[in-house]
């Protein structure tokens, strides 16, 4: 990349700007001095051992967790105690959970239209149109009238992705989206995520799927003990890790 492009990239307003983020759970210092800037359309994979704070970090971004020190600015709006800011940010940020968290008493279609109807004030049939388009994109339009309990894990997670996309977010957060899936269903979900990345969505993905990282990520971040230990392009990260902590981690997960 030329320095001019570097300069342009550096000037472009970041989609997410985190400065000096610190968070405690009671006495435990779980996020230490996080500084992170996410450019529009950037795809970031966050990895690290369990307990490193990676899930906590992305959950802070849409206020599912509250931070005590530092600032988080999402698409120009700062995340404070102000409910209006929180609501605005949550409208722009979609989240996919490890346990899917679909609403079991609503059909797949109703799961997807709930947000648009009640938060974005979209008329019902327009919301349903959008939902059906997205269900097509995740390749399960025929399940629209089924209930989550009738679907497999991979199907449920794809519905969860469609549900978040129905809100037309600018940023998508993924919290270990494939960790609760049986092995044969991981690919179908990852395919959807690759497809999404190729449409230019800004994505932060917490995952152990390193193949996905190499294929799609612009940046890989390694976290440990609540802080960012290393970040680099996937190429450099996997082939040329600099920190001894990173080397140790990679040796543990890439050995098989």
């Amino acid at each position, binding site marked *: 990349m030329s320095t001019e492009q570097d300069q342009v990239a550096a000037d472009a307003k*970041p989609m997410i*700007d*985190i*400065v000096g983020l*610190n968070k*405690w759970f*009671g*006495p435990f*210092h779980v996020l*230490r*001095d996080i*500084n*992170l*800037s*996410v*450019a529009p359309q*950037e795809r970031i994979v966050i990895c690290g051992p369990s307990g490193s704070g990676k899930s906590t970090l992305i959950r802070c971004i849409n206020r599912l967790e509250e931070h*005590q*020190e530092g600032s988080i600015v999402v698409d120009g709006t700062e995340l404070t105690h102000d409910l209006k800011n929180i609501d605005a940010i949550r409208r722009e940020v979609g989240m996919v959970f490890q346990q899917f968290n679909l609403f079991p008493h609503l059909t797949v279609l109703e799961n997807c239209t709930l947000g648009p109807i009640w938060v974005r004030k979209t008329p019902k049939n327009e919301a349903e149109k959008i939902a059906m388009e997205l269900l097509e994109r995740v390749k399960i339009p025929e399940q629209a009238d089924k209930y989550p309990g009738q679907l497999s894990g991979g199907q449920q997670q794809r519905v969860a992705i469609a549900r978040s996309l129905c809100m037309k977010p600018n940023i998508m957060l993924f919290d270990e989206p494939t960790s609760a899936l049986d092995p044969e269903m991981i690919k179908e979900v990852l395919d959807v995520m690759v497809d999404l990345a190729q449409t230019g969505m800004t994505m932060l993905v917490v995952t152990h799927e390193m193949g996905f990282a190499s294929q799609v990520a612009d*940046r890989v971040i390694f976290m*440990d*003990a*609540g*802080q*960012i*230990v*290393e*970040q*680099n*392009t996937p190429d*450099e990260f996997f082939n040329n*890790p*600099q*920190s*001894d*902590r*990173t080397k140790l981690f990679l040796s543990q997960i890439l050995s098989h």
Partner: protein
Amino acid sequence: MTSQPFFRQQSELLPERAPPAATIGVVGWLRANLFSGWLSTVLTLAGLYVLWLIIPNLLDWAFFDADFTGDDRFACTSSGACWAWFDQRIDQFLYGFYPSEQTWRVNIALLLLIPALAPVLFDKMPGAKRLRWFSLAYPFVATFLLIGGFGLEEVPTNKFGGFMLNVTVGLAGIVLSLPIGIVLALGRRSRMPIVRALSVAFIEVFRGVPLITLLFVAAILLPIFLPPSFSLDLVIRVIVVVTAFASAYMAEVIRGGLQAVPRGQYEAAAALGLGYWKMMGLVVLPQALKISIPGIVNTFIGLFKDTTLVIVIGLFDVLNIGRTMVSNPDWLGLAVETQVFISIFFFVVCFSMSRYSVHLEQRLDTTKR
């Protein structure tokens, strides 16, 4: 800067820091738990006000202004509670009209309850297997101790009263209802239509009517249903209906336990060639009963509280002893004191049992995972 390649070595990792002062310690706890929002603050203040109204007055009444000695209510001259009756009457509350020189038998029966129950509730304890034979023999031992005969002076059951009566009726009901409950639970799951219909009918009838109506059956109807020359003690009749009542609830608890035993257990036993009774006795019931113990304890707590209903048919359980005591001119008007005493006793017993059953439920849950 925050998106450029970056790394830290192990030695450069940031150390842990203490959380901001306003979020930890006493201040932090107060803010999070008592004053976390305006509604929470209002509730805290309201709660503190209620406590401030009640607690000092309650303590004054119960302890600081109370009288503890005296021969009758006229000796209680202060504005607080009158506990003077306690000394004189505690035996009556505990044993009813049981002859006072024989109450040691009741005490022993109660003490023996511990080694009788322990191997059932704590099946991992040393010596449990052998002690369980004693558990089986305990009902006979206890009956002998309480009623007498064979060398011990006979005490007719109409002298039973007070807590002893509540405990006797409650325990007898639960213990006797266990085998009947098992039979009913098995019957309800049976494939034989008549057996299933009869079990369902029994369970629904005895669960659907108030215990009071059954006590009236014991007091008034059973003598009509029995041969004219044959008369049963009222206490025995009460135990009979209480047992039937408890069996219905017990059957539902055990049914839950039977359902909780994984289907694979039934299938494995059948595959081994075990017939119905061997399968139930050797494989299914031991597991089902163990799972059911919290439910059984809960049923007992409910039954124990319900034993106070016998006041309605004239038996002198602890509640009735209290009532008759305050209609005695010596102790007129002390209803609240007796009720407080009886409440505390029941509360202590029932609360400990329910804590135990909650503890058991948690233990059973984790071992299953």
